[in-house]
């Protein structure tokens, strides 16, 4: 999934968001000195390759009342992890879903799914739904709630990247 210098310039110009103007891609094209069609075509090509995950608006879920979240973790049989991870990730209350290595003996879990809800009780109910979906393929599970944000900085790629 390689990107070239022109792709990178488009990424740098739009990673803070699209300009709120009637022809936003023409605006970006003007900043970069390239034709509007090239910006559109390159974004479409990056989307087709998965470099652009999606082009959309992300509501602030906290502002909409979805203020509770928990990191659920599951020990799922390795031979079913791909299939089950895909099903968990597709749930509309799961914002991140990853397969990660276990760290035995400290940590037996390999599937991580961040669950969101309006309350802790709703998060717990969603966790039970995932447990039912996974069934006996999940040999153990836990959920970790954050108690404090210790650091949070934006992930920004520098020009040199």
């Amino acid at each position: 999934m390689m990107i070239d210098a022109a792709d990178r310039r488009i990424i740098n110009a739009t990673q803070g968001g699209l300009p709120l103007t009637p022809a936003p891609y023409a605006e970006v094209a003007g900043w970069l000195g390239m034709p509007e069609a090239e910006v559109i075509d390159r974004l479409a090509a990056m989307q087709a390759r998965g470099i652009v995950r999606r082009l959309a608006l992300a509501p602030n879920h906290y502002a909409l009342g979805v203020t509770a979240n928990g990191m659920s973790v599951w020990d799922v049989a390795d031979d079913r992890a791909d299939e089950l991870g895909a099903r968990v990730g597709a749930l509309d209350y799961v914002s991140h879903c990853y397969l990660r290595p276990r760290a035995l003996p400290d940590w037996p879990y390999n599937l991580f799914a961040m669950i969101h809800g309006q309350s802790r009780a709703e998060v717990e109910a969603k966790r039970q739904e995932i447990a039912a979906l996974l069934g006996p393929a999940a040999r153990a599970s836990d959920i970790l709630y954050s108690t404090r944000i210790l650091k949070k900085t934006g992930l920004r790629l520098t020009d040199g990247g």
Partner: protein
Amino acid sequence: MRRAALPQDALDATDRAILNALQEGFPLSHRPFAEAGAALGIDEDELIARIRRLREEGAITRFGPFFDAEAMGGAFCLCAMAVPTERFDAVVTLVNAHPEVAHNYERAHRLNMWFVLATDRPDGIERAARAIEAETGLKVLRFPKLKEFFIGFRVTA
């Protein structure tokens, strides 16, 4: 970023329709606001004005392309540590001093500190994790992602 719920009356039905519809996608075309607005029954100017206001109110975290951070050339690793309570604040200071630590959360678990290392190059992850182990004397468990699943996350406004 705003982390508290907006008052119930902060959003009208059109605002909610915009938030719900544009989560699904935004057109890649010459006049995308006109196109998206037509589907919502509002004109281009009104859609732009409402998105601007929603962003100012904190109802929107992001509007535009969402990039795969690894495809952009970065490397990332979730890490966890079991930090003794009496040393917690001192360890926070040591860990957060590393610019590679992008975010760090205290969690209610024996592994009570969870942070993400983000670097421009893959070898930077291991270097930062080893430095943190040397400075703190604590084991840094590394949980690099093996696979990321497609995400269906949507909130109803």
